[in-house]
């Protein structure tokens, strides 16, 4: 092999290396672009909600004062009868969420305690996927079930229960959030170290006392986080309430009455063919902004709870 040949080969190798390096750089850039799409999504969500909400409040027909104090929400009505008080939608959302939490939290925590502390690992492996089914069933199916099975079932028991009511929607939603509560709670209870339990047993505690006085308090941050996350799920859930709770904004705390929630109003306004830029269409975005803010705050709180109060073992 002559010197010039060797040089040529080295030059070719270097060129290939340079080409490879260039390619590497481009790939790095392309991957960063992929990663930034999620940031773009957030920016777009906030920009869309903010601009339309500002336009909503910029309309002379709407005032901040009315938005927060009026007891009526009728933005889809004719101009003379329009009212823009978000209170009925918030009350509807809170009512359904409250029922869902009353049903879902004890059920979720109870099943988590059973599966984590009392059931064997074999039973746990078999039952947990079954509970996950509840989260995997499309919510339109759960809405169908609430409207066409639960409501007819409850109507003979509860006089005055409307066809559309927050009660059956909330009950079914409680089962929907059950896996959210149970899976996170199971994880945090499993993370409680064996040494803590052994110490409690050593002091003469019964299984029940170990669970309620050691394991659950030690896992409390995870359990609280799961509760808050479940609440955020319930507030943002749409199809169950749209189908089973109704679409009539109604400032009431009667569980038998037809109501509307923030999410069901959004669906109602969107499916009614409101022209873009109209006040009715903008009201949809304003409600969306309120919904987004509420769920975001809850999600951030749930992350903070885990970070602040989460006990680190080992």
């Amino acid at each position, binding site marked *: 092999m002559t010197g010039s040949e060797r040089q040529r080969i080295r030059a070719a190798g270097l060129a290939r290396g340079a080409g490879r390096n260039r390619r590497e750089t481009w790939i790095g850039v392309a991957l960063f672009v992929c990663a930034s799409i999620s940031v773009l999504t957030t920016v777009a969500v906030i920009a869309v909600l903010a601009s339309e909400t500002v336009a909503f409040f910029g309309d002379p027909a709407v005032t901040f004062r009315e938005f927060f104090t009026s007891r009526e929400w009728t933005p889809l009505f004719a101009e003379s009868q329009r009212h823009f008080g978000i209170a009925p939608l918030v009350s509807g959302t809170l009512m359904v969420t409250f029922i869902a939490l009353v049903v879902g939290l004890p059920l979720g925590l109870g099943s988590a305690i059973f599966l984590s502390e009392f059931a064997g690992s074999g039973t746990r492996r078999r039952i947990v996927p079954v509970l996950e089914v509840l989260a995997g069933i499309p919510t339109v199916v759960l809405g169908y079930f609430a409207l066409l099975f639960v409501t007819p079932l409850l109507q003979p028991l509860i006089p005055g229960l409307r066809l559309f009511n927050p009660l059956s929607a909330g009950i079914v939603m409680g089962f929907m959030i059950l896996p959210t509560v149970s899976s996170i709670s199971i994880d945090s209870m499993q993370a409680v170290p064996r040494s803590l339990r052994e110490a409690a047993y050593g002091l003469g505690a019964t299984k*029940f006392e170990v669970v309620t006085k050691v394991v659950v308090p030690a896992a409390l941050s995870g359990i609280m986080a799961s509760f808050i996350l479940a609440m955020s799920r319930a507030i943002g859930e749409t199809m169950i309430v*749209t189908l089973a709770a109704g679409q009539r904004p109604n400032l009431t705390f009667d569980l038998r009455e037809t109501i509307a929630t923030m999410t069901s109003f959004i669906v109602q306004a969107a499916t009614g063919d409101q022209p873009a830029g109209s006040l009715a269409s903008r009201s949809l975005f304003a409600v969306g902004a309120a919904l987004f803010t509420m769920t975001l705050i809850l999600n951030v709180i749930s992350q903070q709870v885990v970070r602040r109060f989460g006990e680190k073992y080992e």
Partner: protein
Amino acid sequence: MSEAATETGVPDVGANNLLDARERARLAARRRRGAVFRWLTLVPVLLAIALITTLFADIAIGSISWQVIEANNSGQDFAWSEGFRPLGTWQRVVGLELVAQGMSEADIDAFFGDSETVRKFRARNRVELMWSVNGRPLRWLVTSSRDDGVDDLGLFEGWRQRSELLASLEADQLLVLNPWFDVAFLGKNASRTPVMSGLMSALLGSLWVIVLVIVISLPIGVGTAIYLEEYAPDNTVTRFLELNLRNLAGVPSIVYGILGLAVFVRLMNLGPVILAAAMTLSLLILPVVVIASREAIRAVPDSLRQASYGLGATRWQTIGRVVLPNAVGGIVTGIILSVARAIGETAPLLLVGAAAFVPRLPESPLSPYTVIPIQIFSWISENDVEFPHVASAGILVLLVVLLVLYSVAFYVRRRFERTW
């Protein structure tokens, strides 16, 4: 003494009998409380399982109904096997019906040759699969169409009243058990008449949307995961990206619908088309795809990467030939589970304009569309005693699709499961 020790499980020190008895009673009470508590925690698990069972049973039962139908045509019915051909089912049955009405072979050929005659016949008559109560089970039936005055009874209610119903039948009436979920249901297009309604356009719409969702979200999601796991330096930008993804995962799906409505449908002026729906759902499932892919990539041990670098491979070569092939099981599982979620999503698509009634089948990403859950939603919302049965049949299809997807995900996870 020794008896007491075995009863309470506490070593008996045998010092003070009186105190011992009181202590033993207290311990027994503590034990009892524990046992009760244990059973109490079992209740939620049983309740959840009961609810799932009830839900599936309710949907299965809801998809079958007893009906009294007018058969003032010839009301012929044909055994299932006679009419059942994978293709051309109704032509076969209509042919048999025409023979029964006394038409000759030539007349029948002429009948099928004239599309206008066929169209009129189909508009006036229905060909459907039913359990004929009077004859053998599961038969094709050709009846004149009926839009009103149909007696429709649930499975159990109809069974209870069966003898009365049979006794009160008029001359040209038939009592049939109508399984709304049958082969024809998948092939029929949407309709304003319950018995004519089918899932064809929704099935195709869902298929289009899902294929596009995979095409869009797979590269972006996996790319993001690779960036965060293999490229990203540990700095503020990266931490912000991670925080952002976590928060996006918690945003309600309807907010993605609002985003899709404002950006894809209006700003980009796509209108209510398949592409807008697919992009909206892609953004919706992106955080889940990223999280699942990151876990899969993280599970690949560093020693493999080091070995690859040691052989002189570049970062991308290492990722493409070592990391990704070893992470493929987790990534595919994550994608399938995300797709399963996207298939069942209803709320965001209501906002980006999935229509309740799509007369034509979707042909391109820019066609108007409907999807299975939207179709189910519109059937539930219809004010008609028969539409809930159609909705049940649609739900059965949706649940079967999801079941298949979950099984595939389960299989993939098993197949590619590796311990290092």
